[in-house]
């Protein structure tokens, strides 16, 4: 890695493309482009030198790579759960369901760098002794799904997938699977149920997918960005990746910046970058307005007011200490014309709509919360509604089969925590405290 780029990483003022390193190139998604930048060299080297799965897992552990889909579980540890030599069919699944509002990073990786995902998944299959893989892509993006199918065909034709990959004794079949509109299928067991051709209703954990996954077989599920980070780590070493970031937050993370900024888009930055540096990269708050609030990692993470987020660094510990979390990196910026009550109404509708309906607290609770906030927005709020919203949300949290229930409670509790006066004003006066609403 050249000294200049290394310094930039340490300064944490610029992007550091790893997953998005082909985005600026013509014909970015083609096999030729990927080969030109050194693609598929890592899987060939692994197969040629017969590098042991243990050694590869060690490198990934050192890198500090954590699940980039939102849970942030250390990838190196996760990949040690499925034993390479355990018998029978095993599956590698890429979770490209990307349903968290404000997230659009995986779409860009699929669109501009599909082969890096493929190589990452192939390396995973080699480590875990898996034979088949699926990339579960959410239904709303059609062109990107088709282009990934093309990339798969290219890779198979060039013998980077299928039987005897690169002429070595290693087979791996990879397919694309298209969802069709269900946020809950971003939950790994619901995703597995969906691949089995059923409703995406989450299973109980334990057993975890590593023990009982697709068709009951051991399955590893990881996010698109997680797999796409692997080839670079194998090429440059875990330590190089770790050094780009900060302690407990190795490497880069793509932040999907949306909302009230001049230049919404995907920014792959070194973890640990101060928030105000990312805001600068995204062109600052739009129309010369003032920052009011930011949701750092998607609506499943607590909102932070401007005063808090402006002094925070974007990494797992930094955001945790500020009272929020990296989540999926879906950074939603809100300016001072935003009515927090109306925004919460829309978010609570989302969770109500997307609840799979399996368990009572989520199915009934999300609807209840939405109806109360709707009532407030219609000018019929009551003073006791504040306590009711918090009470219902707290009774959903921790009592559901999956994390969607926990996620649904987060915006309610965090919005009320930081913007209580707006809710009280709306209840008292029947209208928003803010000039323009987003109702």
């Amino acid at each position, binding site marked *: 890695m050249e000294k200049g780029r290394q310094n930039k990483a340490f300064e944490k003022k610029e992007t550091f493309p790893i997953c998005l390193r082909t985005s600026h190139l013509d014909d970015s998604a083609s096999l030729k482009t990927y080969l030109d930048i050194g693609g598929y060299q890592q899987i060939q080297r692994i197969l040629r030198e017969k590098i042991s799965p243990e050694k590869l897992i060690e490198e990934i552990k050192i890198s500090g790579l954590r699940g980039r889909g939102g849970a942030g579980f250390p990838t190196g540890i996760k990949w040690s759960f499925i034993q390479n030599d355990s018998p029978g069919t095993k599956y590698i699944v890429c979770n490209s369901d990307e349903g968290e*509002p404000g997230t659009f990073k995986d779409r860009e990786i699929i669109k501009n760098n599909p082969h890096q995902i493929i190589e990452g998944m192939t390396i995973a299959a080699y480590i875990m002794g898996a034979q088949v893989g699926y990339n579960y892509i959410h*239904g*709303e*993006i*059609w062109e990107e799904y088709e282009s990934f199918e093309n990339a798969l065909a290219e890779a198979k034709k060039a013998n980077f997938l299928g039987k005897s990959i690169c002429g070595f004794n290693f087979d791996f079949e990879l397919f694309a699977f298209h969802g069709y509109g269900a946020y809950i299928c971003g939950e790994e067991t619901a995703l597995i149920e969906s691949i089995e051709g059923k409703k995406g209703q989450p299973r109980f954990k334990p057993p975890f997918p590593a023990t009982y996954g697709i068709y009951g077989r051991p399955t590893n599920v990881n996010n698109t960005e997680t797999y796409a980070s692997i080839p670079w780590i194998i090429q440059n070493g875990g330590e190089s990746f770790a050094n780009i970031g900060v302690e407990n937050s190795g490497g880069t993370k793509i932040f999907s910046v*949306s*909302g009230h900024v001049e230049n919404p888009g995907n920014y792959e930055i070194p973890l640990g970058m101060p928030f105000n540096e990312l805001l600068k990269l995204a062109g600052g708050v739009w129309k010369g307005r003032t920052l009011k609030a930011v949701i750092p990692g998607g609506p499943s993470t607590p909102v932070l007011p401007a005063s808090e987020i402006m002094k925070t660094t974007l990494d797992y510990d930094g955001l945790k200490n500020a009272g929020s979390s990296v989540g999926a990196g879906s950074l*939603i910026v809100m300016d001072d014309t*935003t009515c927090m009550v109306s925004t919460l109404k829309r978010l609570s509708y989302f969770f109500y709509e997307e609840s799979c309906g399996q368990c009572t607290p989520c199915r009934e609770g999300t609807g209840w919360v939405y109806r109360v906030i709707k009532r407030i927005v219609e000018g019929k709020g009551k003073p006791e509604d504040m306590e009711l919203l918090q009470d219902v949300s707290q009774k959903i949290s921790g009592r559901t089969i999956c994390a969607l229930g926990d996620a649904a409670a987060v915006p309610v509790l965090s919005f009320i925590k930081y913007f209580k006066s707006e809710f009280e004003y709306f209840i008292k006066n029947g209208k928003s405290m803010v000039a323009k609403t987003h109702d």
Partner: protein
Amino acid sequence: MLTKITIQKIDKELKKFPDDQKQSAIIAALQIIQTENGFLTNDLIAMAADYLDMPKIAAMEVATFYNMFELKPAGKYKISICTNISCALRDADDIVCHLKKKLKIDFNEVTKDKKFSLKESECMGACGGAPLMTVNNQKMYEYLTPQKVDQILEELDS
């Protein structure tokens, strides 16, 4: 009856799964059928179930669970527009008003000439291009303005 092309497409999907797991292809099968027919009828869902050797009720569960399936007649062009937070912050609600006014229909309704129908969608994972919409679950249009919407409707209508 399922058309020959439909069956060919479903067979292509079936190759992705083990022989004894044909049910895995149900989402793809229903999506292929919907793309051809515009929407799913009970008969079509039953045909898909029979072709995949699965209980009809299981196919019905799938058809009613996933948001993008249409169980009632849709317009020739089904417009799905996202109103979730990142699009709402970039004035998607103005685009919604514009569409409703222009087409003279509300969400889940079809225009009299059956050309257009409108659907409210959740996040489609392309928020950098907000506000945005898709037509027939396939073509996505980003960075919408009322003028661009008019242009798109005109192109589709011609």
